[in-house]
């Protein structure tokens, strides 16, 4: 699944964007994982994934989000909240 056909559920969109950033299949990303623990992930790739999510939903993920310690689930929650606020 790519971000383009992941529908409107932030959980799917976030996982698809992260998976694409490190060339993994979406089912290899666990929501309980810390972003930093996704195999092959580094800070630049995280930011690239975030940009794709931002473009998809037309939202802005704030700079002060703690990418360093956040889990995939934390990022999904944040994106879901931002999407809700933007509508």
């Amino acid at each position: 699944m790519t971000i383009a056909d992941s529908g409107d559920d932030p959980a799917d969109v976030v996982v698809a964007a992260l998976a694409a950033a490190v060339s993994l299949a979406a089912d290899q990303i666990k929501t309980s994982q810390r972003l930093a623990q996704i195999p092959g992930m580094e800070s630049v790739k995280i930011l690239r994934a975030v940009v794709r999510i931002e473009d998809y939903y037309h939202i802005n993920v704030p700079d002060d989000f703690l990418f360093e310690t956040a889990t995939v689930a934390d990022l999904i929650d944040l994106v879901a909240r931002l999407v809700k606020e933007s509508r």
Partner: protein
Amino acid sequence: MVHLWHLLADACSAGNALLVPPQDQRFAMTEVLDRAERTASDVLAVVERPRRVGVLMANGEPWLRGVLTALRLDAAAVPLPLPVGFAGADAYVAHLRRVAADASLDAVLVDSSLRRFITSRIRAGLDPVPLLDITEPVRPHGPDRPPCGGGDELAVIQYTSGSTSAPKGVTLTHRNVASGLNALIGGLGFAPDDVVGLWVPLFHDMGLFMMLSGLANGSTVCLWRPADFVRRPLRWLTEFVGSGATVLAAPNFCYEQLVEAAGREPVPELDLSRWRLATNAAEMVRPATQVAFEEIFGRYGLRPGVLSPGYGMAEATLIVSAQSGHLGPGWRALSVDRDRLDAGHQVRPVDPDDPAARTVVGCGPCPPEVSARIGDETGTAYPDGTVGEVQITGTPVTGGYLNLPPAQQPFTPDGWLRTGDLAFLDHGELFIVGRLKDMITVRGQNYYAEDVEEIVRATPGIERGRRAAIAVSDGSDERIVVLWETAVDPDRASTLAESARERVRDQIGLAAVEVVPVAPTTIPHTSSGKVRRRAALQVYLTHRDSRPVPEGDPR
């Protein structure tokens, strides 16, 4: 006696400003100085006589004001790193605590760019050192007592050296920094109307001293944050051009990211003809990046020679050598035999297509304030074209690391600073080829083999075997490799190796790490039990070359 507060105040006027384009902010420098006066009063209300003041926040006006406040109070400014990369929160706070203790910090200045969560963790970790939020100055006036001191008093303590377990603070006096800023202004050929643009973190020596040199030149300085660049490199470039900036300093990574972005998305209409200098320094300069950047952005008016390699370090305030942009002769690369790049060897020029060729980029000449020689550990200089350690002297060069006994200070017997970098000189230009120390630099951050080895050693299942950690650099790729002797079965060994690698990334934020299981008694040792590094490197190279090549891997 030179005092940086006065030096910067005299150079600044209502005409030059600090711009923060993403926040649409513009502060006349006279206003920033006035706000720093008021912030100094705010700090004095909490700490009676601060000697060392930490600055911990994201790029912005408060960061600059924090440094100016320290100078106004005759305290040394101690830039502190943000939790960038992927080091976990615990490791980060522990590192800050070690720096705070080493520097004897009296206060740490922060602003609203640090989230509440992180601030509370840091506050608890640094206790009893007070964290003072200087987002906005409160008091209406500056302190009555004018700045005094300066000269040989400490102005900045920069923690960019040393392992994470034993951080080393580079001490820089007002005299060092004033001379270093002059060296930057002259060495980079700043014009009166130059505008300096920066996205690199200000807590890094390149960010700090490029900003201060711009201000000392009376220039306007534009600030972005690293994420502004990394998220959308081409949009950032458009803003950089739109801000009127003419000078940029950034690591090779920046130029590489711009080249990549231009390959994957449409480049906006840009006129880069006013761009005068793009210094490429703070990590290994890659010839391929230089060539690709000039080719792609030349189509948008970038002039030949604007992209200029440089070489510097906090120990020299910043600049050791650099090309000065399009007014200079442009950059040079030499192809040399990669097997003759050890200390004491005369380099051998080879054809660029020779299989042994390594292309090395020239990092320009030294400014008059700094002298560099290539020498051995006794300080004996080698002739041009011989590889050896870069050793430097001059007014901008540090007197040493804070709290380190004289015997451990990095000086030759005749007082030149030993940089630990390997280079050769050719027609007065420094060509950096590697390092004496087992250390690599990624995006301006130094990583030490000993730190990596310590983390690997502590990985459950790995502690029993012998290990050797070495830094591997072939000019385009730098990594730390840990050889690990083990008799466990290959699948289990590779799982353990991967988990050790993840721990390294988790704890110090370094991804360029390889943990290589090897058979027992493979790691070469001297009779006294020390690892023979050169031979260990050969073990790694042999191992790497014998691995099956995955499909699609161009290696």
